């Protein structure tokens, strides 16, 4: 659906996107993750032509964005809704008028507009706030209005630019659940840009990690978190603190394995004591995944590794 090939972008002489290639599938929730200045918002803005790119190719439904004329680009943007970190609502218009604006500009009839706006208001759960002004709403409510506005023209794709970054954790979860509902109910592809790992874990099926305009990781979300590579670890800012005597073995729990009491079973069956020195469990897309580091004596290495291999567990010595 969104096809990006060897995309490059420069601001003057600074390279902000470096050879980025990704394919975003229809119907998925795709996250672009990175620290500030990593180029993630720029990459997203290339998708709806708010920014242009220097070379490479970016096609949405087979259309090359850089080749669209100004008029065609306007028309094309009807197909891509967008929401923003600071909501970007018109302060002097009511909730109804804000949501109605895109349809008004595209010349829909009053009747169509009223029907659509009311439908969307109940979808986002703001039926009662029809005539409120944005400054009478909470952050979460403002974002709901913005989401409704982004959906008025029946887009196939919804772009979310740090849409939850200005919200508290509970509101973030509520908004993410709404996005999930929209994704499932309306079958809208969602591309979200965020610097919050929690957001990625909660909704994204696949994620792309950007650093200085380079892709440093690209995988299913579960894979990324289950078995993070060096760069990902650095990105997450976590390093294990483990003893420097004996042997440290890291055992990964893919989603099906978590609660099979592997560790205690191993201790019992091998009749061996070891220390659990590090561990982490996480909920990703409602699955629990995690890893644990055990510290064993040097002479037990063979036995333990043999046992682990037998049980088809992902592991590494660190």
């Amino acid at each position, binding site marked *: 659906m969104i096809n990006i090939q060897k995309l490059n972008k420069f601001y003057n002489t600074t390279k902000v996107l470096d050879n980025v290639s990704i394919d975003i599938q229809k119907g998925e929730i795709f996250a672009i993750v990175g620290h500030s200045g990593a180029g993630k918002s720029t990459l997203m803005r290339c998708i*709806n032509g*708010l920014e242009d790119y220097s070379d490479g190719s970016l096609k949405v439904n087979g259309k090359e964005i850089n080749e669209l004329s100004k008029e065609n680009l*306007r*028309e*094309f*943007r*009807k197909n*891509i*809704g*967008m929401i*923003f*970190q*600071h*909501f*970007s*609502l*018109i*302060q*002097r*218009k009511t909730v109804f008028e804000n949501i109605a*604006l*895109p349809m*008004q*500009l*595209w010349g829909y009839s009053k009747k169509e507009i009223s029907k659509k706006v009311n439908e969307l208001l109940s979808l986002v759960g703001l039926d009662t706030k029809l005539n409120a*002004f*944005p*400054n009478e709403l909470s952050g979460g409510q403002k974002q709901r209005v*913005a989401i409704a*506005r*982004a959906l*008025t*023209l029946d887009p196939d794709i919804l*772009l979310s630019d740090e849409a939850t970054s200005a919200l508290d954790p509970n509101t973030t979860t509520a908004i993410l659940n709404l996005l999930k509902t929209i994704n499932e109910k309306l079958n809208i592809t969602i591309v979200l840009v965020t610097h919050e790992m929690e957001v990625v874990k909660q909704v994204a099926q696949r994620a792309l990690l950007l650093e200085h305009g380079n892709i440093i990781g690209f995988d299913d979300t579960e894979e990324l978190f289950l078995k993070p590579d060096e760069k990902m670890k650095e990105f997450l800012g976590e390093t294990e603190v483990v003893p420097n005597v004996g042997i440290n073995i890291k055992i990964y729990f893919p989603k099906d394995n978590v609660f099979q009491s592997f560790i205690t079973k191993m201790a019992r069956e091998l009749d061996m004591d070891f220390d659990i020195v590090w561990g982490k469990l996480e909920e990703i897309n409602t699955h629990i995944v995690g890893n644990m580091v055990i510290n064993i004596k040097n002479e037990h290495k063979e036995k333990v590794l043999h046992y682990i291999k037998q049980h088809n567990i992902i592991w590494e010595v660190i």
Partner: protein
Amino acid sequence: MLDILLPALGQTVYMSLISTTLAVIIGFALAIVLILTSKDGLRENQTIYSMLDVVINTLRSFPFIILMIVLFPLTKFLIGKSIGTTAAIIPLTIGAAPFVARLIESALKEVDKGVVEAAKSFGASDFQIIFKVMCVEALPSIISAITLTLITVIGFSAMAGAVGGGGLGDIAIKYGYYRFQTDTMMYTVIILIALVQIVQSLGDYLYKITKK
């Protein structure tokens, strides 16, 4: 005394309202061109922007009394004579229009960039972004700008006496200063204070009801 003050008040109101209206129309158009062509504007064009910038700054640097004299030929061409109340409207308009342009430009500049970007994201045209988004959002500031302009023009119009434009300022000089009629001078000043007060209160009220 009333037979002197009332016509003068009429002339001041007439000159100020007409010139402010014309200045707002011209200034608004200029402000839109400035916003469109400014850096990162919807139709960025450095040549047009810098040219306009220089013209506006030049007009704004003229002392008003000098501007009136410089504009004599133009006034004569447009009105048919270069003195009188109606003739004073031309320099007042040309003096105030660049001022309005700057005020409205900054009012439009204040509009949240994110709102403009959102409008682009749902396919609004440049025309729609300016008139249906930016002007709507900036309306309270534009009202403040017009209020400020009207009051400034009332002040400028006091100098219109120099070209036979009449008005309250003219009375204050002719009767109050040259003929030592202190009471006449006092009355004109009081009327001017009341006039400015009324305009400002009305402007504040309109600002309040449009600001959400």
